[in-house]
């Protein structure tokens, strides 16, 4: 057998050829295995965190994880924030005009499914800045100040109901067990509107999401002002409406899967801090955008052994 045309279609690597066919017609189910690893790389126009604009400029948020299990799993992960623009007019984790890794999080999560619910519990250790011991506090109304802050820890509990189908309600509670009193709750509803009836191709659905943040004891009014707080008032902190979709997953190109998820947000702050975010940001509803790239791979290569 001779190879006579190195650039012709038939001599393209099988993965590429099959991938091209699949790009045109279908995406298969994700190769499954108990042990998976993967990551996300998110580009966001702003660093929005619980309704507060913590960085009024573009940021990259890389994250990696490893998980064990399929429907019920244990997972560990680590993520960070990288500020892309050193803008003197806007505060950063490092101070005006500096850019670097702004935050590092380490987390662990366990999830179980019982139809229609999915219950997740976890822990996260947040370091607001790497090596700089700078912390971010809100000691007075309508202001933010960066001070030394080693980080904090939270326990979180999430209840979702993906088994209901296209309409998925979800509640997450973050209980701070480190530097900040109180808890933060997040309520969300996601409506999945399929592009295609019965088909995964190439973006399956439009995801319409409505989210609300809720501070319980994480505001400066009810406790000692010397203790770091996030918000000025208790109760609803902000509303966030979003429109997104997921393009992917390109499984045939090796065992790894890749996907893209663009999301457009419209955010309405209720808490003064959530409304203003930081100095220089107009206290009005605002649009922002982010694009996530996801990747994961089974520890098992299905072309080498049996993957489950």
């Amino acid at each position, binding site marked *: *057998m*001779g190879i*006579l*045309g*190195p650039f*012709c*279609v*038939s*001599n393209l*690597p*099988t993965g590429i*050829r*099959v991938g*091209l*066919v699949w*790009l*045109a*017609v*279908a995406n298969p189910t*994700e190769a499954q295995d108990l042990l998976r690893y993967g990551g*996300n790389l998110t580009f966001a126009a702003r660093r929005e965190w619980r309704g507060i604009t913590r960085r009024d400029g573009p940021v990259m*948020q890389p*994250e990696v*994880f490893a*998980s064990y299990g*399929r429907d019920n*799993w244990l*997972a560990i992960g680590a*993520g960070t924030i990288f500020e892309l623009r050193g803008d003197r007019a806007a505060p950063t984790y490092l101070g005006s005009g500096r850019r670097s890794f702004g935050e590092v*999080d380490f987390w662990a*999560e366990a*999830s179980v499914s019982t139809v229609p619910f999915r219950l997740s519990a976890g822990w996260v250790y947040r370091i607001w800045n790497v090596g700089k011991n700078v912390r971010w506090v809100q000691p007075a109304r309508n202001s933010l100040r960066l001070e030394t802050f080693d980080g904090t820890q*939270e326990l*979180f509990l999430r209840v979702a109901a*993906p088994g209901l189908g296209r309409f998925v309600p979800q509640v997450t509670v*973050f209980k701070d067990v480190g530097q900040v009193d109180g808890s933060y709750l997040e309520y969300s509803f996601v409506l*999945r509107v399929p*592009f*295609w*009836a*019965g*088909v*995964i*191709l190439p973006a399956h*659905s439009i*995801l319409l999401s409505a989210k609300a943040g809720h501070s319980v004891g994480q505001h400066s009014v009810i406790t000692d002002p010397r203790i770091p707080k996030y918000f000025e008032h208790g109760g609803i902190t902000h509303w966030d409406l979003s429109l*997104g979709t*997921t*393009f*992917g997953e390109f499984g045939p190109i090796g065992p790894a899967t890749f*996907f893209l998820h663009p999301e457009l947000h419209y955010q309405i702050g209720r808490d003064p801090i959530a409304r203003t975010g930081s100095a220089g940001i107009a206290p009005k509803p605002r649009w922002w955008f*982010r694009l*996530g790239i*996801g990747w*994961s791979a089974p520890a098992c290569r299905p*072309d080498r*052994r*049996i*993957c*489950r």
Partner: protein
Amino acid sequence: MTVRLALIVLSLAACSAGTPSSLWLPTPQSTSPIGRGELLAGFAKVDITPPPGMGLSGNGFEGQQASGYSQRLYARAMVMEDSLGERIAFVVADVPHVSSLLHRLTAEQTSRGSSKLGADRLVLSATHTHSSVANHYTNSAYNEQSGRFSGYDAFWVEFLVERLVRAVDLAYADLMPALARWSYSEVPGVTSNRSPIPFAANPVPFGGPVDDTLYTLRVDQCEVAFSNCVARGGFGVFAIHGTGYPATGDLLDPDIPGVVQRHVERAIDRLNGALLADTIFRPEGVYVLANGTEGDVSPDHDLGTRCENHLRQRPGPRPRGPNWAPPAPEVWRARSSDLHACMERARTSVARIGNELGSAAERSYNLVPAASSFRIRRAFTTIHLPTFNASPPLCPNARFGTSNVGGAPNDARTRLLGWSFLWVFPSGFEPGSLAVADPPHGCQGEKRVGLGFVGQGLATGPHGLPEYAQFSVVQMGRTAVVSLPWEVTTVAGRLIKNAVQAQAPWADRVVVVGLANGYFQYLTTREEYSLQHYEGGSNLYGRNTLDLVIRVLEDLTRNIGNDSKVGPIEAFPGAYRTYFKRPSTPTAITRVFTKVQCDDHLLVAEWEDVPPGQFQPADGQVLRIADGTTLLAWDDHPNVEVRAIRSAGGGRHVWRVTYRSPTQLSNTTSVQLLSRPGVGNALSRGCF
């Protein structure tokens, strides 16, 4: 879709024109036979079950990775030689399809062996089980798209060819004086026409919606001519798709044909007075069951056995973590509880249909043959369809239609069936409707070509779809057996039979064996083609293909018995991948049971053994389920499933056997692992 297609076209347009990797297949010709003055027949059966881990084929990308096996896969062979020495071999393998590549490589070796059987005297066909492996096609598009894993697996081909050759050689070595008798019976109620609308579009009268005739050739072997004869084997043809198990199954299995073959083989053994436990595992009798005009014929499935219907888009598995992460794409999954219940129903349905058909085959087989002349003649040809000067002409390029993409509704659909943008704008991935080009244009006429003509050509690559078709007509007594590489619809099959019958005054009947000596997807009538349902959309060379096929078969029938030259075939198998685990030197280990659980009707046991590859199911019986000294089942039984579960490290692998007992298990039930040379110790573990 348009954007994606444009990207593909642009990316591929950058490729320079060239010739893809190809090889010319051998042209093995049979040696002229010398008669021995009497009818001879021999049978053999060879295990072809690969180790778990390969991708199941026949359902395209919807197929699963094989995690184990239930009934084993076999290649069954019948070799017959008439009194003048004319010789023929029929081999049927438990695979979805065979290929001209497999046929030629097998014939190359058998032509040099003792049987001297070349490609012109070897009919190799498939049972068409969709629970088997097929990375063995002549052309790249099928290697890439017909199964779970893409690519041409040379090691699998090497293994399969070796076993096919062994089957022919053993059958030849088994030749003995013989008696043969054809019988024909109708078996209603086990099949149905899955495309009734195209069927109804054919001119009337054309008989029932399916060909439910079971053709059975009983062969007895005799110590000397016509005396002291005993039942030895049989050759049957029946039209049924190998889709009893849905695409969600993850076990290697010969499907309904496997149940039928075992049913008749045990009946043959009973006729000979044998019912020993050791012969049940691999009966002495051999029933070679080929597929007929099954193009539009599905098993008459029980309700709720199409498990694809439980598949839904569901949020993909991915941890969320405490911060925002892009939500995973939805995946096409079924709830495990739904899937489990559905597969149980499918298992019951396969057993019911298989046993009904098996009982009918047994009744046909019980008609004892008498001494009579049995003439064998054959005619064989190879045709290159793109360049064949046909009138009316064929399309010069093979193309499948958009209706092909969605699969066959109610039988073997894909997730793409009924695809419509925002529930409103249909794609044509459906039977009829937008799959029909309106107005018809170009050579493909009513066929709306999937991805467009240029797009499909680029996506499948040059020579990606089959080009060389092998045909044969074999006189077997007073029956003409036509073999061709298509899945022939019921009415197309009747037209073929009528045409051949008109040229064969010596024949009482004409039998069509599809899926033989290659694979070309579907062959339909013009009327069926014009409606572009699944079968019409899978008719590659256009609406005139049946005309050509009939003309070629008429010529062959007229020239039967003359010399048949084996023409060349150029293969374009595409990229090579390795999925087949070649048997390696086994590592001797001490096997241990890690779990045995029993309830009233279910036994589940796990044990540590050597890994897949060293654990080669094709090389002998692995285990038995027994109640005291009474054998209940073994690892070639439809109620037994053997799966490779996980690596246990240190060159050990955990395997699981599941046995569903039709009767209540007693406290003396046990699992017995049989000793295998060089692999492991014999081991037994009680249920309670």
